[in-house]
């Protein structure tokens, strides 16, 4: 009678746990040596190409890609463990984040041999960084509303339109632009969309900063004015863009970045509370226990989804559940931290005050990026048989 919403997980094997130990030790050494200071939301804000290359040297980028493309032929769960260790440590992983998480897998799935040869080895080496070109001023949650046009010309396509929220476009090499290659079919709005690989140094590309609440420059507006994309830089099939971009969503919605964005603040909260030595019955202790219990459960859920995705099962609903629960958890860490510790957030400060400041200012984004939670709950509801 009872119906499982989530796949059953399994313990990680000893080799994977050993790998975890190596990553943990590396991250700890990097902190000690001053190579990085733990921060919140590092997969958006921690851009550090040198750090990305140090990871690449250890074989921790492009982990799941085949060796023939410079990858390491490792399992999805091994990559998961490396990723969660780095996020928990608050390490600067933003530079390679998009390339490693979705560009590599998309190129392997939809790319031509020439495209793979051109990008994959450099992605695995930490020498080529990517952005995402999906959202537009009038296409947020409603992605099918993209208006960027791809007009067929001799030898390729000409793209015109504006993309927004492209993280790192000012520092990256290229992005995948989702564009309309044929007019809107009102009976099937998802038809007629295509993906194009656009290198940012192409003529007609203009990149303008969009500053975050913190004042930091991570996001950009990317204006495409008749940017020529040769035929051999079309990703996958013309007209299949919607299917291509949605096919990988479960991976990015269920990953550890959906519940670990504020983990460095949670760890710092443990340190702050430790100074006051509350007793087991204290509200603060219970609040902390509740957060730790929640993240432990979320992690189990996320791992179970990762294992199931790796075996080829569709997990759109569980992935949406992870993102809805996980991103709300990330925000609740911020609320608990500010109420349990009498320290004012300080954006130019250090330690707890700085972590808290960044977390408060980044928090609104957690439940927006990668599909707003309200839209995801629609996905969940449909999966349950509602609507």
């Amino acid at each position, binding site marked *: *009678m*009872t*119906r*499982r*919403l*989530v*796949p*059953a*997980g*399994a313990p990680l094997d000893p080799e994977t*746990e050993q790998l*975890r130990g190596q990553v943990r030790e590396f991250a*700890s050494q990097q902190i000690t040596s001053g190579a990085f200071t733990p921060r919140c939301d590092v997969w958006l804000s921690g851009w550090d190409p040198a750090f990305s290359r140090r990871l690449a040297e250890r074989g921790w980028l492009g982990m799941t890609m085949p060796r023939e493309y410079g990858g390491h032929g490792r399992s999805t769960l091994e990559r998961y463990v490396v990723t969660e*260790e780095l996020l*928990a440590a608050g390490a600067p992983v933003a530079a390679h984040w998009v390339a490693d998480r979705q560009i590599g897998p998309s190129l392997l799935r939809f790319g031509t041999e020439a495209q793979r040869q051109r990008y994959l080895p450099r992605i695995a080496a930490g020498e080529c960084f990517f952005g995402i070109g999906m959202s537009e001023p009038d296409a947020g949650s409603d992605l099918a509303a993209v208006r960027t046009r791809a007009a067929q010309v001799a030898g390729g396509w000409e793209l015109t339109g504006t993309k927004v929220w492209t993280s790192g476009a000012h520092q990256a090499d290229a992005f995948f632009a989702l564009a309309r290659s044929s007019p809107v079919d009102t009976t099937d709005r998802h038809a007629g969309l295509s993906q194009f690989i656009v290198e940012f140094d192409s003529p007609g590309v203009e990149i303008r900063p969009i500053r975050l609440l913190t004042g930091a420059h991570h996001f950009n507006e990317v204006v495409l004015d008749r940017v020529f994309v040769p035929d051999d830089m079309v990703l996958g099939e013309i007209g299949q863009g919607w299917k291509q971009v949605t096919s990988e969503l479960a991976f990015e919605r269920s990953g550890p970045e959906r519940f670990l964005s504020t*983990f460095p603040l*949670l*760890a*710092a909260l*443990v*340190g702050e*509370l*430790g100074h006051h*030595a*509350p007793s*087991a*019955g*204290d509200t*603060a*202790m*219970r*609040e*902390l*226990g*509740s957060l*730790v*219990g929640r*993240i*432990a*459960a*979320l*992690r*189990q*859920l996320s791992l*179970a989804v990762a294992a*199931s995705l790796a075996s080829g*099962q569709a997990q759109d609903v*569980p992935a949406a*559940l992870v993102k*809805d*629960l996980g991103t709300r958890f990330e925000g609740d860490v911020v609320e608990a931290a500010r109420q349990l510790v009498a320290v004012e957030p300080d954006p130019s400060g250090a330690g707890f005050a700085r972590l808290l400041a960044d977390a408060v200012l980044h928090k609104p984004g957690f439940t927006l990026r990668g599909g707003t939670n*309200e839209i*995801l*709950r*629609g996905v*969940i*509801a449909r999966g*349950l048989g*509602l*609507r």
Partner: protein
Amino acid sequence: MNEQSALNEQSALNEHSGISDHATELAEMVRSVLGDHLDDSTAGLDAEFDPALWSVLEETGLTLLSTPESAGGSGGGPADAAVLLSEAGGYAAPVPLAETDLLAGWLLAESGLPVSTGPLTAVAGELSLRRSAGRVAVAGSLDRVPWARHARTVAVLVPGPDGGELVVALPAGSCSVTEGSNLAREPRDGVEVDTELPADAVGPAPQGAGRELALRGALARALQLCGAAERALELMVRHAGEREQFGRPIARFQAVTQQIALAAGEVAACRAATDAAVRSVADGFAAEATALAVGIAKSRTSAAAGTVAAIAHQVHGAMGFTLEHRLRLVTTRMWAWREEYGNEAHWDGVIGAAALAAGPEGVWRMITGGAGH
């Protein structure tokens, strides 16, 4: 789709989702037994013990599923017990499965005492024991003993001499029972005892029995809560699809579906937490990490019970708020079970203390299960 291909698909799904064929078969068997005997009847206020259901469960070896074969049980593992208790929770089965197998069966077998057939229960308490000439005089009272009025044996874990613990097997006839109940009107009885038993009615409890009994109780209720929450979700999904207002099913209103999706999230997290706890007890309950995994499962399921039951009732409207509606079979149990063997406040205190002891550098290691450096 024909039946065979549906079966194949189901089995392929389970293979990929890591659920063993064995677990699937067991779940199907349990569903068929419970489904045949329970009809969502809401006739009585009390959760009346169902003797006919009990007989079938006993005949199929489900009442002592995880008790060792040497003690007369079926010798299953924690994963088997987990399937059974989740399903029983979802069906609101009025039988003491958790108490008989996971608690009393274990406690009696581990203490070298006979495990009788029939419903059993177990409790930790204090009784005075005075031995004389092959007999032992037992006196004292016990509070809120689950299903005591139906139990053939009440296994009582009591403090023993020199810091150890003892188990006293109280036969049904030796006790006087004062009937009490929890919110779901399941029996939670007072037990008075003042009698003489043969000396072999008392056995030495295994090391750490008190701690393990508490963890077993918490795990059992977490599993029952999880099954009940999954059932509540199923009922709200069904109701939202059937109930029409303003000329359409209420499932068409996003305000309603958003709430159901939130409940689904809670249910999913409960299942992930209890899965992890069940995996961790495969090697016994001794490890600290196991205690933590069980505590997290009980905390999460207890906290979710309130949220899920509230949404379930809101979705059902006034019609779910009556004795006649089957929804209450699971929601009243969720409200009762969340308090038993430690509610979320209790376990969050334990988890929080462990996190503080781990410190800012150790808390992540604690969450990932103590692996790594």
